[in-house]
């Protein structure tokens, strides 16, 4: 497949690995954070870590929208279905994330069931009769709204700058078409502010350099990272999601660290320019504005890190159309997702991994999303030598 197969060539990967081995300084340790779940997935799926010298370590970042969504927002969405009888539309990733509180769908379960079973998810709410629909595109949501004029249709929107422009298109289209039964429960978040929050944390994880986002950057461009690299003196290489992209970008970061440089370099130039997709940026700016702060799972409240609908589009804002109180929700006891999302712990540090937490029965969001570090670890990495024996398949 064009633009994919060329970037997965086995022989080139081996050669790149050799150059990386020749380039690293054996006296030092390299801690590279891959911000995106897409990179985490590539690293595990293709065994990139195993091709790296032992002093090059990947720290998995929080770039998985499903993983960083606070569980209270899932409960909010479930309440929309149970209390307001809306048709709730969302991308498939969100369907299985456990919420923070039990509810109607699970109230009848015997108390002997495991903790997470008493927690609701969109899938359980759907099984209990809620009208929850998985969509591929925001265009599908508009069609559902148009086909069901007597029902309220809410799009449960999540995602970074990649997924935000399609939501903006839908809101503008709904306005043009007069689809007044359509609204958006907006949970879109921003990448650069999360990268800052990781380094500004009271006890920051030690990170030497960043593999920058692929498709987020194809929208926002490489420009927004320039002040970041300068201010924090951390090199950033924007990297494609294919394994050779990850290896080449790691090599570029290692060279920068060896030279004492901290620049923004762009390995993914086939899809990323310095200015990004200006049309998509303009659409986002037209429809959305910054929230003063937003809660990220694992990272806490981060200023200016999320978007909400502007006043001009308030009629399409589900948070204004429906009563949606903030819900404080707790994580499953023992789940290390919050620390894993900060890069402070690895999936194998979690006692639940592979014991009661598996992709079929996820306790935390890092196992739900296929991009989550725990799911990537469980699916591809658990048979490597350094995994705890408790992670054996039951």
């Amino acid at each position, binding site marked *: 497949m064009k633009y994919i197969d060329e970037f997965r060539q086995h022989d080139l990967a081996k050669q*790149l690995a050799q150059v990386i081995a020749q380039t690293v300084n054996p006296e030092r340790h390299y801690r590279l954070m891959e911000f995106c779940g897409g990179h985490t997935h590539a690293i595990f799926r293709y065994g990139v870590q195993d091709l790296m010298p032992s002093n090059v370590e990947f720290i998995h970042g929080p770039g998985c929208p499903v993983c960083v969504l606070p569980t209270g927002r899932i409960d909010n969405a479930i309440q929309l279905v149970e209390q307001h009888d809306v048709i709730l539309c969302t991308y498939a990733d969100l369907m299985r994330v456990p919420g923070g509180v039990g509810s109607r769908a699970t109230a009848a379960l015997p108390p002997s069931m495991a903790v997470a079973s008493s927690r609701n998810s969109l899938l359980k709410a759907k099984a209990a009769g809620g009208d929850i629909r998985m969509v591929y595109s925001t265009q599908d949501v508009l069609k559902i709204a148009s086909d069901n004029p007597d029902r309220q249709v809410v799009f449960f929107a999540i995602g970074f700058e990649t997924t935000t422009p399609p939501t903006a298109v839908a809101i503008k289209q709904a306005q043009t078409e007069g689809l007044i039964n359509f609204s958006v429960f907006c949970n879109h978040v921003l990448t650069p502010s999360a990268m800052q929050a990781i380094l500004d944390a009271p006890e920051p994880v030690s990170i030497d350099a960043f593999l920058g986002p692929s498709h987020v950057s194809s929208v926002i461009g490489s420009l927004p990272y320039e002040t970041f690299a300068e201010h924090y003196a951390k090199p950033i290489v924007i990297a494609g999601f294919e394994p050779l992209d990850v290896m080449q970008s790691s090599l570029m970061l290692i060279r920068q660290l060896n030279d004492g440089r901290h620049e923004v370099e762009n390995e993914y*130039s*086939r899809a990323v320019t310095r200015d990004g997709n200006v049309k998509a940026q303009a659409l986002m700016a037209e429809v959305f504005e910054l929230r003063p702060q937003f809660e990220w799972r694992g990272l806490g409240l981060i200023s200016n890190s999320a978007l909400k609908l502007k006043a001009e589009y308030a009629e399409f804002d589900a948070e204004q159309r429906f009563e949606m109180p903030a819900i404080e929700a707790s994580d499953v006891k023992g789940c290390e997702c919050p620390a894993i999302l900060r890069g402070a712990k690895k999936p194998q540090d979690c006692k639940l991994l592979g014991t009661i937490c598996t992709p079929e029965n996820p306790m935390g969001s890092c196992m739900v999303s296929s991009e989550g570090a725990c799911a990537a670890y469980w699916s591809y990495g658990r048979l490597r030598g350094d995994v705890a024996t408790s992670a054996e398949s039951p």
Partner: protein
Amino acid sequence: MCLALPAQITDIDFATQMAIASVDGVKVEVSLALVDDVKVGDYVLVHVGYALNKIDEEEALKTLALFAEAGLAAS
């Protein structure tokens, strides 16, 4: 969530800004609302039903050349 696939545009309806694209032979419907100047034959990155950007062939070849250079250095 941010995954996007390279797809080749095979058909465009300019009135609705919708196109048909081929992902390794599989036809998908793609909105062109976020991109300008896309024509049949172009490769775009498709994400949640929208073309996010055109893929730059020349830049792709440059990156592949970089890998090849690394190969020369290793041998």
